[in-house]
């Protein structure tokens, strides 16, 4: 089996042939898609043969080869589905699969953006795509309301939250006075669990926490009493415990108001606990659909199986599952618009060049499936034959404060840990727990305010920049956002060469040769030296970031959320690459992540951080299977589980108000 490549052009003619039709054993929600059902009571949402095309970027024709002449990129391609009143449908897929584009099409948010939507979209009996502007405005919010992914940027930073909700309310209740609208805003804020709603309604978004902001957005949706709530990745920007609360709130409101829910998410776990039916999308089309339990427990399509297999599971120790031999759909799709035309098959799937190296062939052979390699430290210990690998890092009582005098906050407080060569220490915690600050101090991008930081027996905590220089090449960092952490105006080869040039030991040609070797090592084509970051997919960019960290031959790499911006399948590949490199080079890794499942996959030992302190530390399996600290237990309980019927969401619903404050 080989990965199917998605071609943006040439599909229109055969759209009907390739559309996933209702099959045997599927539930009734999509049986109504056929035109013969039109006389039946109107479903809440009926989408028929929806296609959305975006104008292709101008640069595309220059960089891509054959078939690049297409004027539009089709993000959604002949999609049909229905949603009954009060039901909940989840649309899942990887980034670029078109799932958000579908959500936006339900309110025709594409209008005026240059995107072309065709087909039929009916929401509560109203035809959205053909509605005039005034009618469409009444549908937006009044009939179907949307909750967006990033609650901070989705609220007006200049205005009080209550005023924003009141404004939206008055759009749909023309007669309402300012006071009545303001009172309604307080009422819905109170309903979604904002404590002291009357007072907090006068706050601006930046004065709210992430969870409260998302509650405020939900309150805005609620204020207009819509019949459908469209939630586009509503919890992606939130910590697991907050995520569980928001999902519980959504379930509660749905039960109370009887509104339908369309949940768009990349997280299968989130979907599993919140919706009745699931629609798996890939490259703008429905791959599989059905009741959520059926799809997740017995997926029929290889793509769904691959997607499920790539999800790291917090409840299973690594190595428990056998690799599932399915093709990797991961990165080929997103590249179609940029480089894939001329590039060899994406390097994440096939080994580039003529001499496949271990990692590349490994990736090609096993695809994305299967969990990450088992603890590399054990392997390294065996390989090196040493009884006890060298102690690289000793941290004791480390502390870091920000701000002066009254505004002082302690980001890291009395943290102690050790790390040996070849070992991986996972650091988990919610946002604001100080894990990134800790990581930056360890590679000395930040100076500790107190405590001791010893690297190979030498105190480096208080060293000045000049004295630190010899250590710089040994301590490296891989950053979270592979887009933002690469200079868009420098080719990837130059970016990787920078640390080598800074070290100043190699000549120009030697540097180029080494960079080419590194590119190959991380599974990229060495000939891509002169390409620029925007030509690569997220996973490939993270590979570049890893190559850059590897360039100066470090002994310790701090990976700060290296996979949190990536799709599950890509995530699995990157995690595997890190493991391979560690085994091969004997690297010590500090793996910082908020995703408990990923950390479990990669770490020998794990440290749980909260409020700047390490609340629990130990062998990975011990911590996960038998957590001692109540905070660790609540973190683990909040993770949405994929399998089975249990819905952990409801368990934490009662903690709602407490955690909001």
């Amino acid at each position, binding site marked *: 089996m080989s990965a199917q490549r998605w071609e943006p052009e040439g599909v229109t003619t055969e759209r009907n042939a390739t559309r996933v039709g209702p099959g045997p054993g599927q539930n009734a929600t999509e049986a109504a898609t056929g035109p013969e059902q039109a006389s039946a009571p109107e479903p809440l949402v009926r989408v028929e043969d929806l296609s959305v095309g975006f104008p292709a970027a101008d640069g595309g024709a220059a960089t891509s080869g054959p078939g690049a002449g297409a004027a539009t990129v089709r993000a959604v391609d002949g999609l049909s589905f229905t949603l009954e009143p009060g039901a909940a449908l989840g649309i899942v897929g990887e980034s670029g699969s078109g799932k958000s584009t579908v959500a936006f099409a339900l309110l025709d948010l594409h209008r005026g953006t240059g995107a072309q939507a065709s087909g039929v979209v009916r929401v509560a009996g109203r035809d959205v795509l053909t509605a005039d502007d005034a009618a469409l405005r009444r549908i937006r919010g009044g009939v179907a309301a949307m909750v967006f992914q990033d609650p901070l940027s989705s609220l007006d930073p200049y205005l009080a939250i209550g005023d924003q909700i009141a404004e*939206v309310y008055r759009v749909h209740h023309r007669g309402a006075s300012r006071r009545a609208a303001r009172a309604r805003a307080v009422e819905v804020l109170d309903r979604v669990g904002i404590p002291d709603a009357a007072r907090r309604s006068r706050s601006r978004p930046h004065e709210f926490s992430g969870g409260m902001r998302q509650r405020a957005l939900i309150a805005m949706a609620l204020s207009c009493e819509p019949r459908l709530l469209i939630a586009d990745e509503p919890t992606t920007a939130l910590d697991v415990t907050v995520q569980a609360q928001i999902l519980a709130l959504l379930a509660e409101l749905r039960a109370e108001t009887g509104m339908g829910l369309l949940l768009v998410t990349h997280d299968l776990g989130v979907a599993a606990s919140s919706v009745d039916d699931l629609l798996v999308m890939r490259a703008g089309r429905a791959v599989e659909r059905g009741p959520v339990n059926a799809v997740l427990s017995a997926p029929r399509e290889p793509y769904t199986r691959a997607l499920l297999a790539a999800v790291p599971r917090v409840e299973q120790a690594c190595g428990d599952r056998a690799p599932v031999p399915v093709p990797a759909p991961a990165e080929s799709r997103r590249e179609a618009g940029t480089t894939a035309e001329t590039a060899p098959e994406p390097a994440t799937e096939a080994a580039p060049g003529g001499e496949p190296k271990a990692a590349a062939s490994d990736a090609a052979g096993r695809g994305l499936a299967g969990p990450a390699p088992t603890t590399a430290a054990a392997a390294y210990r065996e390989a090196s034959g040493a009884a006890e690998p060298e102690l690289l890092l000793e941290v004791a009582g480390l502390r870091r404060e920000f701000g002066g005098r009254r505004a002082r906050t302690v980001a890291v407080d009395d943290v102690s840990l050790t790390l040996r060569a070849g070992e991986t220490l996972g650091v988990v915690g919610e946002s604001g727990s100080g894990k990134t600050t800790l990581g930056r101090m360890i590679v000395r991008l930040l100076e500790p305010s107190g405590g001791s930081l010893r690297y190979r027996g030498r105190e480096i905590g208080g060293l000045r920049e000049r004295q630190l220089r010899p250590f710089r090449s040994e301590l490296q960092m891989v950053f979270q956002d592979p887009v933002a952490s690469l200079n868009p105006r420098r080719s990837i080869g130059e970016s990787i060469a920078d640390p080598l040039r800074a070290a100043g030991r190699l000549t120009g040609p030697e540097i180029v040769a080494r960079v080419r070797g590194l590119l190959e090592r991380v599974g990229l084509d060495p000939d891509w030296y002169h390409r620029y970051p925007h030509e690569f997919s997220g996973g490939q960019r993270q590979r570049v970031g890893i190559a850059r960290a590897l360039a100066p031959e470090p002994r310790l790499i701090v990976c700060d959320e290296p996979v949190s911006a990536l799709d599950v399948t890509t995530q699995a590949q990157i995690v595997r690459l890190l493991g391979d490199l560690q085994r091969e080079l004997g690297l010590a890794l500090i793996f910082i992540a908020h995703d408990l499942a990923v950390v479990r996959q990669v770490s020998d030992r794990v440290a749980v951080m909260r409020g700047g302190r390490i609340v629990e530390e130990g062998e990975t399996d011990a911590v996960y299977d038998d957590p001692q600290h109540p905070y660790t237990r609540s973190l683990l309980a909040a993770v949405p589980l994929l399998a089975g019927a249990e819905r952990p969401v409801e368990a934490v619903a009662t903690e709602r108000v407490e955690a909001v404050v």
Partner: protein
Amino acid sequence: MIPYLLRRVAGAVLVLFVLSIVVYAMFYAVPGDPAKLACGPRCNPEQLAQVRDQLRLDDPLPVRYWHFLQGLFVGQDFSTGTSVLHCDAPCFGLSYQNDQQVTELISQRLPVTASLALGAMVLWLILGVGTGLLSALRRGGITERVLTWFTLAGTATPVFIIGLLLLMVFCAQLRWLPFPSYVPLTENPEQWAWNMLLPWTALALIESAKYARLTRSSLLETLADDHIRTFRAYGVSERAIVGRHALRGALPPVIALTALDLGSLFGSAMLTETLFGLPGLGQLLVHSVRTIDLPVVVAVVLVTGAAVVIANIVADLLYAATDRRVTLT
């Protein structure tokens, strides 16, 4: 808030202090003899020596600067040969040219330039921000292209061309407006406005181009923000979105640029002032530089500097007022 203001004011005073030292040092080193210029072409060496003595030109630089500071804070006495002239506390000295008190000169000229600059600012903000708003809303349409063309033409045309054109058309040909001559606001507000209208327009036409472009790009950027999408998704009308949500986010760069332009206009409006016959600070500065009239130069530079600094403090306060996330520390 109050500590912030105090700190900013202290900083402003320091800036002005340094500015005065720099100007003093520069003019000390500059070639040419102010005494000769003050004394006139038919001046014998004896008279020249007398003038030099009167103007204390032979004192070393620190001493002269000390006298300047003295004048500024406690006042100063000047002998004009026969009589002694007392100059009260904020005293910038006497003009080398005609023994007029500099403080008096400034207080005559400042209102003229202030009227010109502030009035022009109001006009260019209305024109510029309005044009920017329109072209952001009608982007891609014919309106936008015409407006873009206009603003480009405005930026590209020097003030003396626009000014001359305006004078020719409205004063000479159509006779709708009088040839401008300054009438103080306190004397006759109506005449003041009529007379200032052309100079304001000339300056505003040139400046508004910049503001139109800035407003347009800033607004387009804000309109692409996520929170704008939220309000679109809730059926808020486009006009409310722009007026209530987008414009506020687009204003900070406009405020910052206004502060810079307004401040610098105080010292650089010379062309406009000359063209429209307005006895303002710009004219005074050019004249005093040519005659090496040090007290006048220092005073004008300090007043201009103060205008720049004050405008920027006001801009920062406005900035914090439009965006509540900004805390002044």
